[in-house]
């Protein structure tokens, strides 16, 4: 059952009301309305989810309430009332008494949100001394209590630590302790878990939820993730391009949304239950440039239901049903049917008989920790320690794992950007480690790569034409005219206009740049493309466009993919075979259905359970799969099974003996002493 508060207690009055809030930021020449006409009501004890893509103004709404707008930002209109007291225009001196005391905020990135040169204790005690007038000793004691309250083990010891000594998850707990230390009435949590791994994310959100109940405060949960909203919010407000488009209780919004944007946003959110045969829903185009906002409805340009009126007149917020507000001329009724939207070209079934096109055999990569070490026994980091797998032609091999598990290093070794310390990669029959110079360069044609940060991967000083021409020039293929013809064809394939040739990468949106990167990877007509987090920098509506494109091109070009992602839903959609990595090791491999539906490794099961489904009715994950604490340091991996320190099933044997991959079915294997199912000894591992 959803963890949301059951039956919001009837409390007279809202603790926070925001009415007609408009915030604008002055730029050099113009002013941009980053928030326009936002209404919010927050009752004590409830969680209001504020959802939207990047640039929707959701964070600016939070900062407006805190009175902490960036330079040049100011509230142009509207009112913000805390317990009936107007905050807009409150003198700075009085606002300071509100911040951290009555309204507190938790920010996105815990890695940079703490002062690196002050101890945790000092930083948590600071608001307590400031607002509650505590003595240093009292403040210390309260800080200690707060750290214990947010579930930090050995809080007394942590008090003396500096931020860099703590992991991201712990730092976010410290941030929460700091924010709650004065028991605020309202907590604004701005993407509190976006920077964290998925297993840690679930823990932090549960903590926030429990503390909210315990302290009886109201929480404004700002996020882009419909899954997080579905599981943790009581009510939801949806923002688009600075404006509020729809607001309702969570159940109502997910089951009976009226705004086309809400409908589309939910439809393009990938799910674990996503059918791989059908294309992901995607919203065409990209959000408007707020420096030149459209006159009418800001979503009109991307809306399937838009009419002339939508482009002329901006719809006002109306209340079609009690507690359900909406700004739309042509409302829809409820979610899109998950109708079969077949991939534009059906993927060919992978040829099971053909030999593998790509084989990784016992790959190991070690990095020295320091260049010049006086001690001989300098510790080496095992980024990747012994990974083997094989990919057949036409297949997609998906590699998932949390940050720091070595998946990016693995990707770089596969395309021979880095030399393995030991082990080998064989692509199309050629052992990459044995090829040199010209032979290696020639062989690279078959093996291309897509990078996560498309802006970093495209030379900022080259026009797109030159960027796409580069692979041909590097390989000495074709005359200038032939190259140009090929480039135009590539642009057509990835759906970009030919006028793109004359432009520079920074002029394109993230999704468009990833299309350019895909076109470049395709240029040499490779057999294998390794994609390292190809969509993780993209908003959800654009993400599905790129994923669909990748899938379509795979079918038309007979491509083999290795897709690396921390996002299990992405891999679920695109991969045939899935490998799960943990601390440099492959702990489970199998077909997508094997891994997602019949996981045998406790880590895999825990990862899947931690993903919040964008469905308020989704069952809470069964107990016993909660993954404890956090990733151990790769400098010093645990003995035996590396996962044992977080595993709910770990026993003494796990510390002593390293598990090997055992077969659990055809092509399904996992490395665990105490798997969730018994292995099938008859089936060889592999």
């Amino acid at each position, binding site marked *: 059952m959803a963890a949301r508060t059951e039956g919001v207690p009837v409390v007279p009055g809202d603790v926070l009301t925001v009415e007609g809030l408009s915030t604008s930021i002055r730029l050099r020449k113009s002013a941009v309305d980053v928030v326009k006409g936002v209404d919010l009501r927050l009752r004590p004890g409830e969680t209001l989810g504020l959802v939207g893509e990047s640039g929707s103004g959701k964070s600016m709404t939070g900062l407006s309430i805190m009175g902490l707008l960036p330079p040049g930002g100011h509230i142009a209109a509207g009112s913000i009332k805390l317990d009936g007291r107007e905050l807009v225009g409150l003198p700075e001196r009085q606002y300071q008494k509100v911040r951290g005391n009555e309204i507190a905020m938790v920010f996105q990135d815990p890695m940079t949100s703490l002062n690196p040169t002050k101890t945790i204790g000092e930083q948590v005690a600071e608001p307590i001394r400031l607002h509650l007038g505590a003595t240093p000793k009292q403040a210390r004691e309260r800080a200690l209590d707060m750290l214990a309250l947010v579930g930090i083990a050995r809080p007394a010891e942590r008090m003396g630590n500096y931020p860099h000594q703590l992991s991201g998850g712990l730092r976010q707990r410290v941030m929460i302790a700091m924010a709650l230390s004065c028991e605020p009435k309202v907590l604004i949590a701005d993407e509190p878990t976006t920077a964290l791994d998925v297993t840690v994310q679930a823990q932090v959100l549960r903590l926030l939820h429990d503390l909210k109940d315990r302290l009886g405060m109201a929480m404004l949960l700002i996020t882009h993730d419909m899954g997080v909203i579905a599981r943790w919010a009581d009510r939801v407000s949806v923002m688009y391009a600075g404006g509020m488009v729809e607001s309702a209780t969570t159940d109502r919004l997910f089951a009976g949304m009226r705004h086309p944007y809400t409908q589309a946003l939910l439809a393009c959110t990938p799910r674990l239950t996503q059918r791989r045969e059908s294309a992901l829903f995607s919203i065409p185009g990209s959000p408007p440039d707020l420096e030149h906002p459209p006159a009418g409805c800001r979503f009109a340009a991307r809306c399937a239901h838009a009419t002339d009126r939508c482009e002329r007149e901006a719809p006002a917020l109306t209340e079609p049903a009690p507690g359900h507000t909406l700004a739309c001329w042509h409302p829809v009724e409820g979610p899109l049917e998950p109708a079969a939207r077949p991939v534009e070209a059906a993927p060919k079934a992978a040829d099971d008989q053909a030999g593998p096109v790509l084989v990784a055999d016992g790959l190991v990569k070690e990095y020295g920790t320091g260049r010049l070490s006086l001690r001989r026994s300098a510790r080496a980091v095992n980024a990747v320690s012994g990974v083997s797998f094989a990919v057949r032609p036409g297949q997609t091999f998906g590699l998932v794992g949390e940050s720091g598990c070595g998946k990016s290093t693995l990707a770089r070794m596969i395309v021979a950007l880095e030399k393995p310390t030991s082990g080998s990669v064989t692509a199309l029959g050629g052992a990459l480690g044995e090829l040199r110079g010209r032979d290696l360069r020639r062989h690279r044609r078959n093996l291309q790569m897509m990078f996560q940060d498309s802006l970093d991967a495209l030379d900022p000083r080259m026009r797109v034409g030159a960027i796409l021409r580069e692979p041909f020039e590097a390989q000495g293929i074709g005359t200038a005219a032939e190259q140009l013809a090929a480039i135009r064809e590539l642009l057509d394939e990835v759906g970009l206009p030919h006028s793109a040739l004359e*432009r520079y990468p920074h002029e394109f949106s993230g999704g468009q740049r990833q299309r350019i990167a895909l076109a470049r990877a395709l240029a040499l007509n490779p057999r294998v493309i390794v994609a390292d987090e190809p969509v993780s920098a993209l908003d959800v509506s654009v993400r599905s466009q790129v994923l669909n494109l990748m899938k379509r091109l795979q079918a038309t070009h007979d491509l083999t993919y290795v897709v690396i992602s921390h996002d299990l839903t992405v891999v679920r959609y695109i991969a045939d075979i899935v490998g799960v990595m943990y601390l440099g090791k492959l702990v489970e491999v199998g077909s997508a259905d094997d891994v997602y539906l019949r996981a045998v490794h406790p880590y895999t099961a825990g990862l899947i359970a931690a993903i919040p489904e964008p469905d308020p009715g989704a069952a809470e994950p069964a107990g016993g799969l909660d993954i404890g604490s956090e990733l151990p340091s790769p400098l010093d991996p645990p003995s035996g099974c590396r996962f044992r320190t977080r595993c709910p099933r770990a026993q003494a044997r796990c510390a002593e003996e390293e598990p090997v991959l055992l077969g659990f079915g055809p092509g399904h294997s996992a490395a665990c002493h105490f798997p969730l199912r018994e292995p099938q000894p008859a089936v060889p591992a592999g």
Partner: protein
Amino acid sequence: MTDTAPPQQVTSGWRLAVRSFAQNRLAVAGVGIIVLLILFCFAGPLLYVTEQVAVDPVNSLLPPGGDYPLGTDAQGFDVLGRIMRGGQASLQIGLFAALIATAIGTLYGTIAGLIGGVVDGIMMRLVDTLLSIPFLFIVLIAATQFSSTVLSLSLILGAFSWLGPARLVRAEVLSLRSRGFVAAATVMGATKPRIIVRHLIPNALGVVIVNITFQVADAIIAVSLLGFLGFGLNYPDVEWGTQLSDGVSHLFEGAWWLIYPVGGCLVLVVMAFNFVGDALRDSIDVRLRRR
């Protein structure tokens, strides 16, 4: 329908940089000052002809006015003409020294950054060593060895001021090497020389150009210090430092016109180069940061 709407306007990297540069009024003023001063020093003597070789004791230390808009100095040279002549030398030395320093530094830093490893370590320790020897000291000692000419002063200053650019360029090369587009080029089979020519050099160029302007400013100050301490050009040649040094001895006699006009020019031109350098650096950052 997909996310394929073409961007609204074409803005090339350099054009964007130029636009952001032009928006910086100080920088535009800086360019103006530099152009005007160059015209003043190099074209000025064609229009305003003065005797700058034969001394004229009769007309020494005349205050401004009459035939001498900025007065005369102790040798009876017209100060306005003297500033033009001194400016030629100061600007030339500043520019030459900056170019020499940047050329050596860029080459050195690029090599260190590209080779890396032990060679890089040794090369950078050498830079550390040279950087810990005070620049002015070593330059003054070197200057005692040569008779001062525009060329020798440029060489001396250039030879000892390439260390900063070397460090800067090395850091830039190292950071560029780890960029995604270099990895992408490697994956598509580009050779190392190709990556250097197509990616590293064009991207490192901005840093180098910015550095040249700061180097010019620094070199003009340095040569004025040499001149002031008595190691500038020899009679009848002159640069601004020597001119100021000559003026000091008459400061107590109230001959202010020997100091302020030339001092003003010196500060103005150095400031102009610093303005331009700052604005260039910002505009290059803008181009790379605009996301």
